[in-house]
């Protein structure tokens, strides 16, 4: 399955799991994640708390950001 990102290129991730309050987690689609404020996205990436998925499989953040 080819995933189209905001730049119109393919690859990368299709879902992201972000930490929520009290140990909960929230799943976002790529489009929803990219719609978050940049400050919030950057902060998750620095902390390494965002988990990226492609086709239901977890992938390395570096691979996720390649597409």
């Amino acid at each position, binding site marked *: 399955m080819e995933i189209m990102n*905001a*730049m119109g290129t393919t690859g990368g991730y299709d879902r992201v799991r972000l930490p929520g309050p009290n140990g909960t987690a929230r799943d976002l689609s790529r489009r929803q994640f990219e719609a978050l404020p*940049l*400050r919030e*996205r*950057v*902060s998750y*990436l*620095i*902390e*390494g708390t965002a988990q990226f998925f492609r086709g239901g499989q977890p992938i390395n*953040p*570096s691979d996720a*950001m390649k597409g």
Partner: protein
Amino acid sequence: MSVAVKALEMTRQATEAIVKRAETRFEAHRQEIFRSTDRMFAGLLIAQWLGGIAFAFFFSPYAWAGKVKTVHAHVWIAIFLGGLITSLPVMLAWKRPGETMTRHVIAVAQMLWSALLIHLTGGRIETHFHVFGSLALLAFYRDWPVLITGMTTIAVDHFLRGVLWPESVYGIPNPEWWRFLEHAGWVIFCVSFLVMSCRKSMRDMQVMAERGAELEALSENHWRKSSVVDRAATDAGAR
């Protein structure tokens, strides 16, 4: 300060620095586009001025009153009115490149050049294509309000001249009353697509800047992890 609070503060500072750099990159890219387009228009406006004078000299150099030959008003209009239209935007492009006012003044001047060329060619319909070419060139700024300024300028020009001096703009003394609306409709058609293109282009530039920030954030995360590993290795070696 506890380790957790210190870590949070470090993350906050790093986030701010990365976001700031992304905003700076985006703004620098925009400014480069604005300045290079200002330079392009400065050259184009001067070329249009010289071209307008040459055109007036070639096609309507003289006027006759009986046996008296005089220089045709078109030549003086091309020299002086053309010079007036050209001077301010060229000066702003030279002295204040990249500023909002500069590109709006350039938009007005460029559309006034369309109007002047239409007048100098006696309202030839082919010269009206200059309007559409100019709008496309104004879209190089990727700043859609500039297109609205240009569109408004040419609409006001066509309306006023259509009422006061129709031959100057349509080449005939009594055009249909709705001729102005027909021209305006095509300009709106063209501008609406150019506005969409400008907005998309600006959004793409922003996404590029944000993608850079995300990659920087990943690097920061890798650096932090590797620092911890390095420290652990150093500590283990010391023991």
